[in-house]
């Protein structure tokens, strides 16, 4: 019996023999006499300049076809109804899209160049529209404003203050 007690006592006492752990900082893990690093001032990613070297050999990026495409001026001020897909720009706190681009096809398809500027309408709407899915087309009603090209900057194009926005249904 005393032996068992002794064994148990030793079990309890065992952790006491171990010394307090030593606090170690990460810099102490590098030997103090280690050779100093050679200052290496290369940018954060080393192959970053490679793209530039290859740029000359590769084909140019797909450009927007006619960024300043001609617009039909006679449409200015006309009350129109146009179907299209909504690309949201501004979303209100209630989750309603109040400013968006209306385009003729969904997702600004990446296989072809982006649509020319006369195939995009910049729409603003006071009430906005609650978008559930980006691939749902909508009818937009309102007066179209046509801005002719004024300078090199692509500010030509169609704009609209939408009166009504509603879901486009497939016609029977």
């Amino acid at each position, binding site marked *: 019996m005393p032996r068992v007690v002794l064994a148990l006592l030793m079990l309890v006492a065992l952790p006491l023999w171990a010394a307090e752990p030593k606090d170690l900082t990460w810099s102490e893990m590098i030997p103090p006499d280690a050779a100093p690093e050679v200052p290496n001032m290369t940018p954060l990613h080393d192959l*970053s300049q490679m793209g530039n070297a290859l740029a000359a050999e590769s084909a140019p*990026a797909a450009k927007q076809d006619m960024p300043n495409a001609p617009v039909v001026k006679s449409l200015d001020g006309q009350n129109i109804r146009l179907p299209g897909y909504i690309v949201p720009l501004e*979303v209100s706190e209630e989750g309603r899209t109040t400013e968006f*681009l209306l385009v003729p096809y969904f997702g600004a398809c990446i296989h072809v160049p982006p649509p020319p*500027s006369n195939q995009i309408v910049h729409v603003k709407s006071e009430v906005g529209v609650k978008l559930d899915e980006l691939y749902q087309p909508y009818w937009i009603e309102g007066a179209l404003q046509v801005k002719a090209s004024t300078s*090199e*900057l692509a500010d030509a194009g169609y704009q609209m203050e939408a009166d009504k926005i509603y879901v486009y249904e497939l016609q029977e």
Partner: protein
Amino acid sequence: MYLFRLAMASLANRRFTAILTAFAIALSVCLLLAVERVRTEAKASFASTISGTDLIVGARSGSVNLLLYSVFRIGNATNNIRWDSFEHFANNPKVKWAIPMSLGDSHRGYRVMGTTEAYFEHYQYGHQQHLELADGRAFAADPFEVVLGAEVADALHYKLGDKLVLAHGVAVISLVKHDDKPFTVVGILKRTGTPVDRTLHISLGGMEAIHIDWHNGVPARGNGRISADQARNMDLTPQAITAFMLGLNSKISTFALQREINEFRGEPMLAILPGVALQELWSLMSTAEKALFVVSLFVVLTGLIGMLTAILTSLNERRREMAILRSVGARPWHIATLLVLEAFALALSGVIAGVALLYVGIALAQGYVQANYGLYLPLAWPSEYEWTLLGGILIAALLMGSVPAWRAYRQSLADGLSIRL
């Protein structure tokens, strides 16, 4: 009216069960409303974080990922992009303004962002609101100046002129600090209710300066160290940044520039329209939202079924009571109405207590939730949708109440005055 009084008195007679039942309904109503509140507020705060920015550009990854780390400071960038790529597009004739951002460091759990003065001038949130300084000024030529978000200043009790040390990495407790280059607080921004509140803003030069003497992934030792004063005299033009935001002269040219950036030959980059990325994020979240909503609806249903059980079990012991009511002239439909009223009263008090519980909960948790999750829960009146939910619960309670009512109606017709228990 006397029926209602009778219903109340009858409930009061069994007040312990009644209170428990109402409490179960209150808890479930509180849960349903809380889920609804957090859901709408989270959405609103996401939507109001960025406004007026046409394109966000970063290293090629995913659009939601880029939106999350650049605007919401959630997660980390996959890679940096080169400074000259930024300059290339900042000087594009279609671009009106450009804000560079450099992320990756932190101070006591708050993210540090390196940027330029353009950030204070052009960054917009909410309804095209600009950032405003509550105190002090934006950082200027000296690289070791920092502008705090409102939440950072509040939580850590910093004021103008304080010195603080930024840390490498994004943990709350960082073990590797840039402690030889302290920053001075020169400005504190007004509260915006966006992640800006939880960010420390330094200049890109400052970001460059704190990393200038790091070699091979560790801070320099001994002679390799570069002091703050030495750093001030060095060329601190950054070589890389994490992302940048662009405002365009014409929204119509958004697609054209987006394509130009995505197909940039210099390095792989990704340009996103924040509105589109936000929409994608919501369709991601909507599944989880729906699941939460369905779960809380079932909890409400459980509460109501608990009420139904309590009333149904009491029916048998109350047959004598019904008989007495009949004997003093109550018609069977009186008995039925009495039971429907009891159910309604239980549900109504449950709903009222639930709403009260919600408001007490919001009032208590508001500060904590704002500080830790950046989510502002307003003590606002229930929205139209919430009223509809509450109304729906009451109607459901009425429908459920009609089950024991119908049984009591049948029993009182069959039993009349002579019951055999």
